[in-house]
């Protein structure tokens, strides 16, 4: 889910600079898409940016100013929301990395003939609707759900049903479930390219397995970790359906608040300002992503 494909794609023709001939695709073929996005993507975002400076005040109507941002960055509650948004994304990214790296490693080094099945099992959940996944989590984690039923009645490990849904646990589990395939695939694609002879050399020179992994394999796969982490962080930052349905009040994030502002409070200027904050963070992630891709591109 990155810009890498096209980026690499656009560099490819450099190997063969041909003379101009009738078969080449003219550059203006990009124009319809570019114009469409300028009118229906850049303009709306610009307008949204502008609206952030026009928050509503009770009885006062719209006044131009930085009031929305002052409220956002000066109020303890909203600072908490911003903190929650980023903390949740960081947490989800770290959990995805911890769970995803071993899976990616297994996929590349050990899966053999099962690799097709593993990739299928990674991608299949991506194609189920977000409603289905959160519904599934609610069925599993509800007070009388499957997990409580197993622990309480079947195994007798607990006396009282655990409160699992609408907790920080369910929020993180739900998001990790959605995002960890991206991490696995990003890391796997880099691990695939690592020359096994480097690891063999390390072993021959006396490093044990663990040292080889820490000193050779892990550093070589940092690019994949970076790509995956940025992607997961970026999507986690903007996601709200999972939190809305199984997060309860555990994390109050910017997307949730935007949804609330739209549905109940209806201060659209303030919602726009919160959206702009999310956009800035998304653009920063995009920039980091590009830097990473460029670097990898140069290294070959």
């Amino acid at each position, binding site marked *: 889910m990155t810009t*890498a494909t096209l980026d690499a794609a*656009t560099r490819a023709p450099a190997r063969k600079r041909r003379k101009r001939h009738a078969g080449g695709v003219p550059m203006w073929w990009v124009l319809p898409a570019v114009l469409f996005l300028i009118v229906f993507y850049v303009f709306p975002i610009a307008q949204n940016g502008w609206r952030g400076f026009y928050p509503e005040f009770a009885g006062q109507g719209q006044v131009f100013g930085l009031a929305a941002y002052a409220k956002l960055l000066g109020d303890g509650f909203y600072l908490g929301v911003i903190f929650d948004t980023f903390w949740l994304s960081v947490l989800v990214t770290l959990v995805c990395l911890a769970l995803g790296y071993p899976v990616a490693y297994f996929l590349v080094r050990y899966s053999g003939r099962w690799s097709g099945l593993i990739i299928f099992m990674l991608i299949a959940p991506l*194609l189920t609707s977000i409603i289905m996944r959160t519904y599934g989590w609610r069925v599993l984690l509800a007070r009388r759900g499957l997990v409580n039923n197993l622990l309480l009645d079947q195994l007798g490990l607990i006396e009282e049903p655990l409160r699992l849904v609408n907790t920080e646990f369910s929020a993180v589990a739900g998001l990790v479930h959605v995002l960890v395939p991206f991490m696995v695939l990003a890391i796997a694609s880099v691990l695939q390219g690592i020359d096994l002879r480097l690891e063999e050399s390390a072993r021959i020179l006396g490093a044990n397995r663990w040292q080889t992994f820490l000193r050779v394999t892990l550093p070589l796969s940092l690019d994949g970790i970076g790509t995956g982490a940025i992607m997961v962080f970026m999507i986690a930052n903007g996601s709200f359906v999972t939190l809305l349905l199984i997060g309860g009040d555990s994390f109050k994030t910017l997307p949730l608040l935007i949804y609330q502002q739209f549905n109940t409070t209806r201060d659209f200027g303030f919602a726009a300002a919160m959206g702009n904050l999310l956009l800035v963070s998304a653009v920063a992630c995009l920039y980091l992503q590009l830097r990473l891709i460029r670097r990898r591109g140069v290294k070959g």
Partner: protein
Amino acid sequence: MTGPGIMGLWRRFKRNPEAPLLGAFVALFFTFMLAPILIVVVVAFNDANFIAFPLRGYSLRWFYRIVEYRPFLDSFIVSLELAFASTFLACVLGVPASLALVRGRSRHADAIATFLLSPLSMPLIVLGLAFLFYLSALGLGVSFLSLLISHTVVGLPYIMRTVAGVYRGVSTDFEETASILGANRLQIFWYITLPLIRPGIFAGALFAILISFDNLPISFFFGSATTNTLPVVMLSYIEHQFDPSIAALSAVQMLLAVVALLVVERIYGLKHMSAPT
């Protein structure tokens, strides 16, 4: 890597004792990945109108409920029309653009590609809010056309990625030959390029359709009696009741998606679709 067989696995185990540990971890991981999905399929056949374990009886009544409850069917049709129309529009815009970016000669190609793919990276809820106000200012407001435009913006990058991915792997020889033999640009596009990149278009389109079908953060801003998409109706249903009809509906939806995935796998291969680089 080809399959090693049982003996091969054993030999591998002796060489790499950490492999079984890793294998166990991977098994647990996929339990985590598949459990919330499989449980929904099981619950869809649950007889009671609430969900409590152990399940008591099984029936198909919730599948009947899908057809019976009008908003499900109506919104399904809206979603279907929207997914296909927006994907078609995204193809019309995206295919020529990706061809130009792969083979065209411009110093700005990198920047343009980044721009055209950037909707992938934007938080959808912010886009939804921005689209609603902008399109309302244009007089489109809450309408199918508004949904169509916003879903096209989101679907475009998926088309471009897969088409560029395939086209990059296509040799220039075919097009050059056709050109030397006197074909004009449109003929080359229609008779040479298009058939060559068809797998890319097909895969990207399927992805865009599925993404559009599952879109909630944009669609719910444009909800009304005639423009509610399936996820929007499902969301409001799930917020008010918890009976298994959502499970049945999800199971049917998943079946459709998995069939689509298998079709793409046959035609195009999965690795190209998912690998981020």
